[in-house]
């Protein structure tokens, strides 16, 4: 772990406080059907249309586990370089809530499917390792809707029973920036693996954030508060910022911190206590007698290892070594699988250096402006590759290429066609250029004489004139050579 040069500290008049953060990320497992039932997990369906008899907890209904969800959890565990537990147990977490039809959530308490692992973060001042405590499988709850009726709460059970992975980090995070990097890295790993789509708008990725503070230099942890169910990275950062300052203020005023569950109010940008949850805090976990211990063989795990694609860390290493990218460039290009695939498709048939610059520079800026993902890019990898080759073989200049690129962004057109149609091809015929240059020298007799008498600075003027007359299409290198001869 490298020394963090830009430490995140909360300063009060005499004291500096360090913030200690641990995350419990709830990631929805990508699967067709739910963890213990055969209803669909599709997002956005009409209320209560994806609810089986099991999900609605009708009398006598029993859970049967989805093998794919088990595989997804193990794959994620492998991606987190974690210990896979060959025997794990499903427990019932007992509490009453309107959107919890069974009166308990099936989760894993003592024996999770995945044990300790780690995630490497690329911070501006070096790498940081964040420990993973565990990963377990559990059921999602339904949704309570409080604002459709003044007297009643409405319950939609479509989400009830959808598989979640709860990924618990060690309290290794120290700043909102690290939390940002951690969540993004976790999401990137799961997207590479195809185990969670990481779509935060649809609630596929949420987190409970544990925050405590301690005076800089002390070893013991402070009392922590848990901020429940935060559904965007930005809100996580805001909540941490608010909560850490709240705790520091309490300590500075001589108060102690109550260990409690808090809610982040996104409108007021503050956290507040959820007292209603407190008295029901005894979850009475016990092994679910409707299920047996989940046992997986070495063979089962080995087969899954074969399905693991190259993950961001390894890919980054390869990009640096094989393509001579800078760590900065590599980090950006591997951040998600789609980007790195795009990059690798572009460089199949074109120059790596140019491709890197064009993707990180022009393409990202253009996509950003249009609010598009790389998968939605109007310019296919193949066409960007062609554009780069047109630059490389001198057909067009870099400047003209930008014009072509703009046309390409309007619709996926072959850059060659654009060049032809718009007549943007670079003039590289020496005879044609000679004629052009002769004309320019002819038109600027006086300046040519001045140049010849030693005013060498005027060379630039002549290049500019030639380019202007050619409409930017003249091959600058050839123009240089011919001009020198002629002058």
């Amino acid at each position, binding site marked *: 772990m490298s020394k963090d040069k830009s430490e995140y500290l909360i300063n009060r008049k005499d004291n500096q406080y360090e913030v200690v953060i641990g995350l419990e990320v709830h990631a929805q497992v990508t699967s067709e059907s739910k963890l213990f039932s055969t209803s669909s997990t599709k997002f956005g369906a009409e209320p209560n249309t994806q609810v089986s008899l099991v999900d609605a907890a*009708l*009398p*006598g*209904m029993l859970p*049967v586990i989805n093998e794919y969800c088990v595989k997804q959890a193990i794959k994620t565990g492998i991606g987190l370089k974690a210990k896979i537990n060959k025997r794990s147990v499903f427990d*019932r977490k007992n509490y009453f809530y309107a959107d919890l039809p069974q*009166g308990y959530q099936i989760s894993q308490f003592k024996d999770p499917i995945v044990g300790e692992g780690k995630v490497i973060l690329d911070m501006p001042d070096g790498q940081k390792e964040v420990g993973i405590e565990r990963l377990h499988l559990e059921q999602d709850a339904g949704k309570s809707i409080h604002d459709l009726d003044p007297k009643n709460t409405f*319950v939609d059970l479509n989400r009830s029973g959808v598989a979640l992975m709860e990924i618990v980090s060690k309290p290794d995070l120290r700043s909102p920036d690290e939390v940002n990097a951690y969540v993004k890295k976790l999401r990137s790993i799961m997207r590479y693996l195809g185990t969670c789509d990481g779509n935060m708008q649809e609630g596929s990725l949420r987190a409970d954030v544990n925050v405590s503070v301690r005076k800089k230099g002390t070893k013991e942890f402070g009392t922590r508060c848990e901020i429940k169910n935060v559904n965007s990275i930005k809100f996580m950062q805001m909540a941490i910022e608010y909560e850490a300052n709240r705790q520091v203020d309490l300590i500075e005023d001589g108060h102690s911190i109550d260990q409690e569950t808090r809610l982040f109010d996104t409108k007021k940008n503050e956290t507040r206590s959820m007292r209603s949850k407190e008295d029901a805090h005894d979850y009475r976990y016990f092994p679910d007698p409707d299920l047996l211990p989940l046992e997986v063989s070495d063979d089962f795990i080995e087969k899954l290892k074969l399905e693991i694609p190259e993950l961001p860390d390894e890919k980054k290493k390869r990009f640096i070594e094989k393509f001579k990218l800078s760590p900065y460039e590599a980090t950006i290009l591997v951040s998600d699988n789609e980007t790195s695939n795009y990059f690798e498709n572009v460089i199949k048939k074109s120059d790596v250096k140019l491709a890197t610059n064009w993707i990180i520079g022009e393409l990202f800026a253009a996509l950003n402006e249009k609010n598009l993902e790389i998968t939605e890019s109007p310019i296919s990898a193949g066409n960007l590759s062609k554009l780069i080759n047109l630059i490389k073989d001198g057909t067009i200049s870099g400047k003209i290429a930008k014009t072509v690129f703009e046309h390409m962004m309007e619709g996926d057109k072959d850059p060659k066609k654009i060049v032809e149609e718009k007549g943007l091809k670079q003039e590289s015929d020496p005879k044609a250029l000679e004629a052009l240059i002769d004309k320019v020298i002819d038109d600027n007799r006086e300046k040519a004489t001045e140049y010849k008498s030693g005013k060498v600075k005027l060379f630039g003027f002549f290049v500019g004139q030639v380019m202007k007359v050619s409409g930017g299409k003249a091959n600058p290198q050839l123009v240089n050579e011919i001009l020198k001869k002629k002058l």
Partner: protein
Amino acid sequence: MSEITKQSLSELIKNIKDKKLSSTEVTKAFVERSEKSKKLNAYVTEDFSAAIDKAKKFDENPNLDLKLPGIPMAVKDLFCTKNVKTTAGSKILNNFIPTYESTVTQNIWNEGAILLGKLNCDEFAMGSSNETSFFGCVQNPIDKDLVPGGSSGGSSSAVAAQLTPITVGTDTGGSIRQPASFTGIVGLKPTYGSCSRYGIVAFASSLDQAGPMAQNVRDCALLHEVISSYDEKDSTSIDFKRNNYVKELTNNIKGKKIGIPKEYRVDAMPKEIEDLWKKGIDYVKDCGAEIIDISLPHTNYALPTYYIVAPAEASSNLARYDGVKYGFRADGENLIDMYEKTRSEGFGAEVQRRIMIGTYVLSSGYYDAYYLKAQKVRKLIKNDFDEAYKKVDAILTPSTPSSAFKIGEKTNDPVSMYLNDIFTVPVNLAGLPGISIPAGHDAKGYPLGLQIIGKAFDEQNLLNIAYAMEEKINFKNKITDWWIK
């Protein structure tokens, strides 16, 4: 031909197959007798006219290859039955109509049987006398104001009184065997995992098992053959090769080793029970089996273990009855108020008591001392049986420590009520099969049963021993039809 309702299941099937009786005649006879027997309060829901319609339909085009061709049958009200009210004996499910069918009952209908109605039981199967039912006590046809046992009390009463030729009950701690013993019929609790739990209102998931209740061992074997099946919808269902239990039924048990556990000689066991057990041992010897004294050292700890494990699981299994999705709901000012009132008014006293026990033993600070401890003792109890089965093929014990008692006699003393299951509970904790067969009468003329406990999945052997003993015992139930004027 004897009166239709007096015939055993096997006789009825033979007469239907021989076209001597139609399904309609048989169904009407049981409906008629059931109509005349309302005093027993055996039914919670009658489905008589639908049953007769189905019988008529069966007769139009009878499929006589089925195992239960056109046989009418009432079932315990713990099995969810499609479009027929299912209450589990509780007010909280008083108005619940499932849109699905339990696997066990589906297996029964698939073999041609016809639903007569739903039989009374203790609320959520929690009881040993059928007195905890929201729908009132059930009379034992043996004598007035006598309990029929529980929790499958409506079932035992209905079979003994011949309101149904046969039935299915469920057994969590003795709920098939104890009422069978109290009413002079045969009741089998199969090995855990033998019959699917899908669609059965859950009491204690690691102990619950459905099983047949019948007038004789052969009928019992036949129904077991129908209901025992592997079911993908139940994760605890076991995929093993099931026998043709009736075809392979034999009274030849020569050379079988039968264990007699000394720990079942409990303090204050009535002499009648002691004598019955001795007689049972003699019968087994007569059949050519060998008697071997064995020890099940942790027997005395079974009941305390059971009263931790079963309530713990029940406290969680019954959390779904919260007034939100189905069943009874009391008005409340807010969600929590609604929950508390619904569950307080919807559950009876015994169910509330057990939910409280279960909640307590799982709660923070007590889990290790109670729940975990009980799971460990459960292991010791199972080890006892594993050890014993190295030496014997089956174990013979009394079914209950007494004969049926009077309604109201034990309702104020939960512990004395719980002691009823002292001989049956260890079998559930170890997941083994157990059968109770009628073996004699006490001084009052009330029936007494003997229990045979088998190895896991060895129902065939168990049925064979019961079949052989039944022949020797030649039990006759003394039923006077006192409830029919």
